[in-house]
Structures are given as C-alpha cells and as structure tokens.
C-alpha cells in the first residue's frame, strides 16, 4: 500500500448535524418507516377521498326515491336495481357497452401500426415527432376538439365537401343509409359518435401498445422469420401475444372512458342516451341519485368482468 490515510479523514464521517441529519440517519436505519411515510399521503388520498366517495355513491344505489315527494328513502332496497333493468335502461347499457367495445377494437387496429412504427423504426427526431403528434391532441381542450369534429362531420361540413370533390358522395350516402350506424348526416349518427370517440381516446391506446412493443427485442421478430414464419405468422405468434398486455392496458382506458363519457354522445350522434348521459340526467335534473348511482355501478362491473376475462384468456401471461 503506497497511499497513507490522512489524519484528518476518519473512516466514519460524523453525522451531518442538526435535526435533518438525525432524521435521515434514523430513516436509513428504519426503511419500513421511510416507506410508510412516503405511502401515507397517497394511501389516504386514494383510500379516504377517492374510494370513500365511490363507496358512498355505491351505497346510494341501494337507497330508493319516493316517487311522489322526490325525497330519498334511506332504507336498503333493490328497488332501484329493478328500475335499472327496465327495457329503456337496458337499451342504454347495451348501446354504451357495444359502442365502447367498437371504439376499443377500432383504437387497437388503428394504434398498432403507429405504435409499431414508433417502437421499431422511429429514432431521434422522428420519435420526438411521434410523441408530439400523439400527445398534441391531449393538450387542447376536449370540448374544442369535439365541437371541431361537429364542424367536420356536419351535413355542410368539411368531410361532406371532400366527398363531393372526390365524387364519392354516393359512397357516403350509401353508408348513411345503413340501418343503426347510419343517419341523416355523419354528425347525427352512431358512425359520427364512433369516429369522435376513436379520435379522442386513440392516444391512450397508442402509448401503452408502443411501450409494450418497445420491450420486444428486434431479434425475436428476426428469430421468427428465421424459423420460417411469414410476416403474418410472426404477427400472430410473436408480436400480438407480446403486445397484448399493452393492448389490454390501452383498452382499459378506451373502454372505461367511453363507458363513462357524457359529452361526446350529447354533441355528436343520435338523441339516444349513453350511460354517462343517463347518470348526468338522473343526478342532475331528475334528482334521482339512487338510479344515477346504480348506473355508475354498471361500468365498474363491466370493467371487472372484462379484466377477469382478459386474465383468463392469458392477456397478462407475457408480462
């Protein structure tokens, strides 16, 4: 050993002095206490304010409303759920769930190639441009975007004009004459509602799918081709299963956001109600908080069943 320890540099340094030094020493020796301290505020927030209010709402769904006085009867009953299962309300639920499913599938189909490009090929500036392009719509007001779409989809709107210029008005008319998804114009049809939902929630699908694909090494795709798999076989057997956790994560967003939204179907689409609009109407104008609460239980249950099913199908196996 050539180096000689200097007199003034002890092997163990003195505590950094003061209260803060003592506290950080103590926290270092008690990592569990440190963890508890860090988790306490978010746990309180999540547990008391968030879950607590949700639980209070759910409790309301077991109350009922007095039809004559409009007062809430605070006795536990399943009467409100009986009301929920009236044909008109079931129609609302089915309509919303079908729309949410369609938006989710549509978002997955549109998002995959974009996410694949971003994960596999985009580098440097192109990657920044990708993030900007995906996130930019999220920065502007949601209402502005929805009203902009109203202008795009309206009978006198940009899309109609474009179809006319391309001499494709017949195609648009043929689409609009289809039952259920058609209507007198795109802005007052389910097709229009679908397009706007798809546009608004697409970033929430692209980002998790991109993150999932980013974790798939390029060598796996090469190995699949090397072993004789055509590109479509590689997609089915390697890329899709490995991207599935990302697709499921994205679908949780697109599905639940569509299930709960009450603004888009109000501005764009037919006058038929979606769950969010029903909740809004019942707890606002109608003052029927128990039924509004019962309606909110539906998306929670649907999501629960969906996730249970996704897990059963092995969607999380590749995690």
């Amino acid at each position, binding site marked *: 050993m050539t180096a000689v320890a200097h007199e003034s540099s002890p092997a163990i340094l003195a505590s950094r002095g003061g209260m803060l030094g003592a506290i950080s020493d103590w926290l270092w020796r008690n990592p569990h206490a440190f963890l508890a301290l860090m988790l306490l505020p978010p746990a309180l927030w999540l547990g008391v304010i968030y879950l607590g209010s949700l639980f209070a709402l759910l409790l309301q769904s077991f109350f009922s409303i007095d039809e004559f006085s409009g007062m809430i009867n605070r006795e536990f009953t399943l009467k409100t759920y009986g009301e929920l299962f009236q044909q008109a309300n079931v129609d609302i639920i089915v309509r919303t769930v079908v729309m949410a499913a369609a938006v989710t599938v549509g978002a997955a189909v549109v998002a995959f190639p974009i996410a694949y490009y971003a994960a596999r090929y985009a580098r440097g500036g192109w990657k920044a441009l990708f993030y900007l392009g995906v996130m930019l719509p999220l920065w502007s007001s949601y209402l502005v975007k929805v009203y902009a779409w109203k202008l795009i989809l309206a009978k006198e709107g940009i899309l109609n004009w474009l179809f006319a210029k391309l001499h494709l008005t017949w195609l648009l008319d043929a689409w609009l004459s289809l039952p259920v998804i058609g209507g007198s114009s795109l802005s007052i049809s389910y097709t229009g509602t679908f397009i706007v939902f798809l546009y608004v929630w697409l970033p929430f699908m692209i980002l998790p799918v991109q993150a999932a694909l980013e974790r798939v090494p390029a060598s796996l795709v090469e190995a*699949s*081709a*090397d072993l*004789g798999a055509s590109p479509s076989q590689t997609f089915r057997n390697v890329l899709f299963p490995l991207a599935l956790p990302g697709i499921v994560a994205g679908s949780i967003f697109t599905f639940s956001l569509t299930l709960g939204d009450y603004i888009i179907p109000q501005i764009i689409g037919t006058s038929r109600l979606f769950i969010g609009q029903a909740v809004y109407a019942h707890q606002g104008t109608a003052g029927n908080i128990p039924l509004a609460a019962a309606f909110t239980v539906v998306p929670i249950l649907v999501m629960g069943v969906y996730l249970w099913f996704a897990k059963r199908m092995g969607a999380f196996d590749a995690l």
Partner: protein
Amino acid sequence: MIPAVSFQKVSRHFGAVRAVDAVDLDIAPGEFFAMLGPSGSGKTTCLRLVAGFEQPTAGHIEIFGETAEGVPPYRRNVNTVFQDYALFPHLNVADNVAYGLMVKGVGREERSRAAGEALELVKLPGYGARKPGQLSGGQRQRVALARALVNRPKVLLLDEPLGALDLKLREQMQDELRSLQQELGITFVFVTHDQGEALSMADRVAVFNDGRIMQVGSPEEIYSRPATRFVADFVGSSNVLPPDFVQRYVGPKRWGSLRPEAIRVAADARGDGVRGRVAALSYLGAATRITVEADGQRINAMVASGGKLPAVGDEVALTFNRDAVHIMQGEA
C-alpha cells in the same frame, strides 16, 4: 462440389460505412467454419447476409448453388442461433423448439416428438414445460440450439453463441458443438471475436477486418503463417516483428511473426542471440510467459514452468531458428 455458402464480391454498405466490402468466400458443405474478427469488422453482417436479415448492396450470394439475394429469411433453409438467444418469452421450451415446425404446419404430435428429440440432443430432456425465464444462460443457449436444429437446416449460423457463458461452460459447449456438428454433418458457420474459440473449434477460419477478409485458412495456417500483421496481432500470442528487426536477424526487410514457444531463453547473456532484459513474467500453469525487452521491442517467449526461470530485470539472450520466423507477404 457446390459450396454450401458462396459470396461473390459481396458488399453491404450502411450509408458511408462499408460493413462488408467486396468479400469473396466459399464455405464447403459439412464444414465447421469460423468468422473471426474484432467488433465492427463485418463478420456478423456476413452472417446476417446468409440468414437473409440483410441484403447485399452489391455482389452475389449463393446457398447450395441457389441465388439468395431477394429471398426473405423465412424462405431460406438456414437457421440461426442468436447472440441473445432470442427465445420467445411467452412460449414454453417445447413450443419454442417446435416453433419452426408449427409455422410450417407440422401436426401437434409430430411436433412434440421432434421437439423432445431435439431437447434430448442438446441434453435438456424433460425441460419442455418450463418458460425461458426459468432457465440459466447455458440452458437457454441449448434451447436456442435445439430450436434451430429441429428444422434440419442446410446451414446453421451461430452468432457469438458462447459469448454470454462463463469460461467452464464455454469450454464444455465448445466440445459439445463440435461433436454435434460431426454427428449431424450440417454446415456450421460460427461468428466469434475469441481467437481461441475459433482456432479450437473450426475446420477453417476467416479473419475479418474493416469489412474485408484478411485471411482464410485452417487454424494451423492462421496461427503459424499469418498473412498480414493484423492477422498475427489479432490471432494473438505470436510476436509481430517489424521489418528492421527481421532484416537484422533473419534477412528480408519485411514484417515477420514468431511464435513464443519457438523462442529459447538463455540466462547467459554473453551467448548468441537477441540480447534483452526481462520485463515481466506471467505464470500460466504448465508454461510461463517471459516478456523480454530487446532492441526496443517487447518479445514474448513461452517456456516450461518446471525449469529455472530468470527474474524480472535479468539480462537474457533469446535464440530461435530462422525458419521459425514467418515472413508476412501482406502489406497491412
């Protein structure tokens, strides 16, 4: 005889970078062929050209006499053992091994029988149900090998397959790969930066540098008769002697190479030979390497560890036969 793999003036450029530059190469069927070189020398790009992951910028590639340019990887009867193994993490070992058969539409029973056989071949019977994540590095390497061999490829490509293994496992796998290749008779093309590995395993070695092949030959040729200074330096252990030195002690004014075991070290500095001073000693088990500074040159000599050895700082004389000095013809 039709070569297993034939490169004719093959180049692969990435922008201004000439990863592979006008390479000519023939690999014989059934040969264990090593591509040796430092990283960035073009050896892996050559392998990827055979696999079909890269297309040549210029030149012509044939695999068993058939044109390979423009043919996608999935239509080549060539399989690769990847450096990172590239096992599918969501499939178990048996499904990984049977993947190539599955995509070709082989029935489930036939598939699992073949996968079982392949796993037996690489000494991993009964591991079919495990996931790749539950295996050690050496086991993953064997699964990757079984997954490639189950397809009975015409050529097996191995990209630094032993790089991630520890020394003991690597030596064991070297032996196993060698005997596997002899047993199956498949052409193996093996990429490595480890000269010891290339020399001990391969029938023939191509030494790469800067996208070009410096020398192709048997391990013995590469080791004792390096064509260029680069080959002598890279294959290692040989002493590379500058032209002045060679002129003084041997004759021609050219670069030369001299194997350390061909040098005798005499403690008596008054005798004939190259005089010098011992700069370092490293004990390597059976032999000891003596590094001597002579004529401004560091020369390694390998001597048996048993005898009396000089100490660091001692004056010694180095002697060797003139014939032992290999005169290099190449310029670089």
